[in-house]
């Protein structure tokens, strides 16, 4: 699943624009991940800061 490293996230919305599922939503300084996230990792790749990571359920 997708983990948001909130200490790194700059809440810019770059990830939101590339999410094919529309599963990310930026509400001011908080990025939320909806249930329909498929952990495809596209957002993690494009994040300018490296704030997103696809991890195993156990690692969360």
């Amino acid at each position, binding site marked *: 699943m997708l983990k948001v490293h909130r200490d790194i996230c*700059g809440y*810019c*919305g*770059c*990830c*939101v*624009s*590339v*999410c*094919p599922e*529309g599963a990310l*939503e*930026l*509400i*001011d300084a908080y990025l939320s991940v909806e249930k329909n996230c498929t952990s495809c990792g*596209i957002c993690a*790749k*494009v*994040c*300018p*800061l*490296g704030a997103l990571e696809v991890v195993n359920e156990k690692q969360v």
Partner: protein
Amino acid sequence: MKNRYDVLVIGGGPAGALAAKTAVEKGLTACIVEKRPAIGAPVRCAEGIGQEALNEFIDPDPCWISAEMTGAGIIAPDGFFMKLESEMAGSKVGYVLDRKFFDRELVWRAANAGADVAVKSRASAPIMENGVVKGAKIDFCGKISKVHADVVIAADGVESKFAKWCGVDTTVPVREIMSSVQYVMTDIDIDQHSTIFYLGNDVAPEGYLWVFPKGERAANVGIGISGKKSGDGHRAKDYLDKFVKKTFPHGKTIEYIPGGVSVCRPLDCTVADGLMIAGDAARVVDPLTGGGIYNAMFTGRLAAEVAAECIGKGDVSKKSLMPYDKAWRASKMGKAIERNYHIKEYLIKQPDEKLNDIIHSVSKLNLKEFSTLTLIKEIIRVNPKLVLELGALAASLR
């Protein structure tokens, strides 16, 4: 905020502000909903705009202009410097804005013209009836209210969620998102009247790095790289930090701003039943320069003009709203996007050696008209070989 408007505008950036202002000037009721608590901040923009482009919408005001530009420079991958100046040496060719105040000014003007504004108010879902957009559910501090409208103008920026909820695919392809970071830096040695662009696969793969002056010894220092080239250890921030360490080791960073800029083609269609899409949300950023302020204001204003006509006729169907889509595509702006998309696609495929060759061919250009088109034409003129490589595209530039 009332529960019904002629036009509901999602987003309080330049596209939304121009849409709302134009709508009320046409005699409609309009409201801007902005999810952030403040208009204009944080700024996710390098803030550059051409002089003529700005003047088409608003008279320059020192309150929101950080610096006036008289030239530009392009730095080749090997460090060679190409200087660009206006034929009229020393004349003003563009501005670096202070978007915090610029955006606020635009929304003020919309409000003074009669538009309602609601901040910290997020459109959380469209109101749809039989596939027609009829308004939006607005979340204000956790309280949700329904706002009905004849036309909703989605001007919600690069995230572009509203149109997506209405069934329009706004997803930006990975290779066409510019993954970006910008520092506002002070105490750095710069030419305060020139914007500088650094090119090269080691500097900014499939993108560029910019230094846009914000005044004496201060600048927006930023970078955009293709999402395709981004990954652990080689993200936009890594490239920018490398550059800053080398170029401005003693500079001080007073703002740290990540962001995303789309450099894809515009959406296939920017209208639907009861819905119009403007600005970055419509993907009308210039794919070559990444500039979007003018394009946002242009499409925002045009959307409201067409909305006013359609509301007047009592028909806000997709077919009725189509003149908006057709008009911006046929405009100078629409044609520039199409042309610059092709030029961008050509340039990102070139190795550094080729970029060096092109930039070495001219060390100083005095442009009759200070625009990307004139620059491209000049470069082709001194590199006749490019005509063959560019094929039909070169012909279209004549």
